[in-house]
């Protein structure tokens, strides 16, 4: 029997993990300040910003993909910017895929973080201030450590959700081997070509991956056990 995965499959798996890893790191950097702001602000803008962040949960991925494609295209604002910067156009590139995935997975990172930040008592932050910690010092020495379970949930969900996306990838990335062809697209290709055995291997792999990740999350993350 041949190896379960062809070299094209392996390349898709590698690309998927690379994409998910890069996207998760960016999302933690971008999502944490957004979540902190959403958790603590009393501004009128909290509602609208929270809704925009949550949009990808309810919108079909094709809608997000479509608008991002337009925005990144030659006559879109992002497209103008990237062309002016000499980067060229982003659709059908790995970078374009990363940007699209960041938008698409944003709520899965921001919401657990926001919940974690909201559950930190105001008193803990006030205590830190009376112990001479500035606002940023308090954030790093008290808020982030107390939000650790939320950070873990956010990272896992952001990573897993990026691994699992299909629609946005197809709209923005297309299907270019080694550049934008991730596992979900590769499975689609296999099915189109009636290669059911190959599709089975990859699909089963995805199921096992998703199960193990979520099991680990629910088993080891002490969310809710904290007082």
């Amino acid at each position, binding site marked *: 029997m041949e190896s379960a995965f062809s070299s094209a499959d392996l390349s898709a798996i590698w690309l998927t993990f690379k994409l998910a890893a890069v996207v998760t790191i960016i999302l933690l950097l971008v999502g944490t300040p957004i979540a902190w702001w959403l958790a603590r602000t009393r501004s009128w803008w909290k509602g609208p910003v929270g809704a925009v962040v949550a949009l990808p949960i309810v919108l079909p991925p094709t809608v997000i993909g479509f608008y991002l494609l337009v925005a990144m295209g030659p006559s879109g604002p992002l497209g103008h910017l990237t062309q002016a910067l000499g980067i060229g156009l982003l659709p059908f590139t790995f970078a374009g895929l990363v940007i699209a995935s960041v938008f698409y997975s944003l709520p899965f990172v921001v919401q657990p973080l926001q919940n974690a930040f909201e559950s930190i008592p105001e*008193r803990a932050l006030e205590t830190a201030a009376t112990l001479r910690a500035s606002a940023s010092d308090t954030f790093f020495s008290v808020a982030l450590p107390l939000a650790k379970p939320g950070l873990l949930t956010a990272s896992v969900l952001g990573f897993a959700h990026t691994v699992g996306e299909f629609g946005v990838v197809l709209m923005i990335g297309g299907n270019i081997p080694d550049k934008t062809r991730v596992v979900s697209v590769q499975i689609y290709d296999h099915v189109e070509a009636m290669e059911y055995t190959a599709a089975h291997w990859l699909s089963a792999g995805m199921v096992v991956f998703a199960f193990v990740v979520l099991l680990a999350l629910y088993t080891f993350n002490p969310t809710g056990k904290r007082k």
Partner: protein
Amino acid sequence: MIHARFNLSYPGFALHADLQVLAHGVTALFGPSGSGKTTLLRCIAGLERTANGLLQVKGEVWQDGANFLPVHRRPLGYVFQEASLFPHLSVRRNLEYGLKRIPPDQRRVQLEQVVEWLGLNKLVGRDSPAGLSGGERQRVAIARALLTSPRLLLMDEPLSALDAASKHEIMPYLERLHGELDIPVIYVSHALDEVARLADQLVLMEEGRVIASGALNEILGRLDLPTAHLDDAGAVIEASMAAHDEKYHLTRLDFSGGSLWVSKVERAIGSMVRARVLARDVSIATVAPQGSSISNILEARIAGIQDEGPDRVALRLTVGGKHIMLSRITRRSRDQLGLVPGMEVFAQVKSVALIA
């Protein structure tokens, strides 16, 4: 001096406080719940931001119309009602949290010293504050605040969340701090017994306003203030340990108004103690009582009388010229004895509590 003036209003509550107190010893902010004590303390800490507040501590402006020193720049310690230890840090790291943020040349206390003061030797090695009792947590919180070498210590009802046993456990530490530390303390409380034990100055608050402030006994002895009419109203007397009566297991306390016998206390002769005499434990005789089981009888002069409900009156007495005591008797007794201000009487003290 500490001068604080804050105006603040929320729906249903307004604070209009103007306060000048001495910047040494313990100043108690006392009043019923909702009177604005905690809000005033939070304003002093900078935790509540008011538009036109004023705060001067020993001549330094921490806040006025143009300037607002943020909380983390104010050299103060704050002990909250509940200990608020950081759950993600070990006990030692909790203690070090503020200490680490103070430049070494501004540290006036060492960790070991404070650990010793608050009896934390056995707790300082704990990995987490989770297993500590309420009293232990509060002691760690007090130590943590002291380690920032504060120039003003603010305490917001630090005992009120504790059970009676924990209160009993922590009180001696608070009294020691009072004796050994040269840091002015502002202590919020709604328990008169705590105030009587700890405070040197008393600030009374009611509905967001300061209604009186001054030396502890001066305020406690004023018949026009609500403190004189609380169930556990009473006066505080600073006295010195004079002698022991080994046979009957008693100790004599001397003050300029006379002597008081109390159950024997194991303290050095000559040391100063604080005794509390509740108004309800003081009865009045117009002639020197004979054949009484009450051994503490002081010559006193009635300085004031005020009705206190339909059946009772409160008396303000001066003992030895300057000490003030309160007495609570029935209105009938007042009339039968013909008590009027200025009269020389005998105050029979049924019970004296040594409180510090």
